[in-house]
């Protein structure tokens, strides 16, 4: 796969250092993470007893490390689902696990699921892999969203063309040229102009209430 110059490489984050948030009522785990990441510069490891969205937004961590049995899991999952503020790579750890649970957690959006606790020697590689995997997933999600938006925009343009052909008696080419001119005059994307046109046509027909 050729690197996409518009996207930073997944390990670009690492080159700028690492900000890690450990959500754990106990401070031992955060100390262990810091120990395992010794040598990463600059490094900031913070611990919070519970997940506080505003605190997290202010800190902007690259990775969130959390116990699998933390009640905050639902909050983290909802943030990912909404695809909104500060999506983060989430690393989940657990002392013992049943078969299949790791795969299931990863399917639900966790970037790495670590069984048998978190040994300092493994911390660095686990967090690196989690961040790379997360960056890749984000990119795929972004690509998918863009593909969907493109398709949507094309459909809107088709509908707006149809409307112009009907209302203005234009042929298909003429309708498209008119849309393109409107877009250029207004400095807006053609999909946006088409959507506006359809919305106004709806108002004139009395659709909007």
């Amino acid at each position: 796969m050729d690197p996409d110059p518009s996207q930073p490489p997944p390990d670009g984050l690492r080159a700028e250092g690492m900000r890690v948030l450990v959500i754990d009522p106990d401070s031992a785990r955060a100390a262990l993470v810091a120990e395992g990441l010794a040598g990463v510069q600059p490094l900031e490891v913070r611990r919070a007893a519970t997940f506080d969205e505003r605190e997290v937004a202010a800190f902007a961590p690259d990775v969130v490390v959390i116990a699998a049995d933390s009640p905050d899991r639902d909050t983290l999952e909802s943030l990912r689902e909404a695809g909104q503020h500060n999506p983060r790579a989430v690393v989940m750890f657990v002392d013992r696990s049943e078969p299949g649970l790791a795969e299931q957690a990863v399917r639900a959006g966790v970037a790495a699921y670590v069984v048998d606790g978190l040994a300092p020697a493994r911390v660095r590689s686990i967090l690196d892999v989690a961040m790379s995997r997360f960056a890749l997933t984000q990119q795929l999600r972004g690509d998918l969203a863009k593909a969907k938006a493109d398709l949507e925009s094309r459909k809107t343009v088709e509908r707006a063309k149809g409307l112009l052909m009907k209302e203005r008696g234009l042929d298909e080419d003429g309708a498209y040229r008119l849309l393109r001119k409107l877009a250029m005059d207004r400095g807006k994307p053609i999909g946006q102009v088409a959507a506006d046109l359809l919305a106004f046509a709806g108002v004139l027909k009395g659709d909007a209430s």
Partner: protein
Amino acid sequence: MSGLADLTLGFIPLTDCAPLVVAKAQGFFAGEGLEVTLSREASWATIRDKVSVGSLDGAHMLGPMALAAGLNGGAAMLAPLALNQNGSAITVSSRLATQLREIDPKGMAAPLITAAPLARLVEQRRGQDAPPLTFAMVFPQSMHNYALRYWLAQAGIDPDRDVRLVVTPPPRMVEHLRSGEIDGFCVGAPWNAVAVDEGLGEVLIKASQLWPGGPDKVFGLTATWAERHPGEMRAALRALIRASAWADEPGNHAELVALLSRPDHVGVEPEAVARALRSEIVFHRNAAGLPRREHALWFLSQMARWGQVRPELDLEAVADAVYRPDLFREAAASLGPVLEPAMLFADAAPPASGLFDGTPFDPVKALDYAAAFPISRVRAEV
């Protein structure tokens, strides 16, 4: 030896886990030949994941979570039993309640408090460039999320634009209300009562007012598990139905309160648990245990309304695959001699006509219903 496998069932510390806790403590599981271990879990996501991979055989589950679990390549779930009706409520901080009373004394004194006073406050705050108010609920796929959104949107408040919605674990709701991190929440019992008892919040509307007889939690398990363990499933359903009937009985409430208040179950003050039991939550009466198709379709309509599922999804097929009133009826009917006469459900009353605002809901037109709301994310296909 009954020949049945031992089961591990998960629950979240909420009053509506009662059927599971009672079935174990009162020996209803044992009476069916089941050896059951209850596992208290910390999050709904963990419940879903553990049931999906079989490390839990079944669990106390959010109805919409059971419906959504199989949609994105996850394990398909079944809901053969509804655990309760009502119990949740929308609570706001005392501070917010005072502001609402100042801005709209009449609206706040109405027998049914809508979000209209809140809409006026939201409008006023927008003018002042104040940050949006924050409301918490327990999970994106939950009755609490949909109830809160419905209530807000009915008054013209767009839940995605005009306020901020966050997910907060039920046991943290009250402390987040205290710290001012959130201004209100929608959560199940006993957490509304806890907020009120601590003088931190006021209940604006209860689930029983929002939707009389409306749905909430279910007993969830995977379709694969049910297929492999039909005997265990039937035994578990029989035990849970008997436990639900026991939990509804006012004469048993003192014992139930003591049981639920224990730190290994819900772990709160007994009075907070008692409140919802007295007036609100129903486990068994009025066929509360029946996992109704129309309830599943209402949940799915709200998933479509808020953009959680694509409008192309065959909502009826999903509802029928997950919500299984047939399994409930079969287990309930087999208990006939034990629980006569209320238990046959041949003539279970139809559900209440709809939600508090009276918008009619036709289950076979769930998508049209979702799209017709003035605030809806269902894309209008021309």
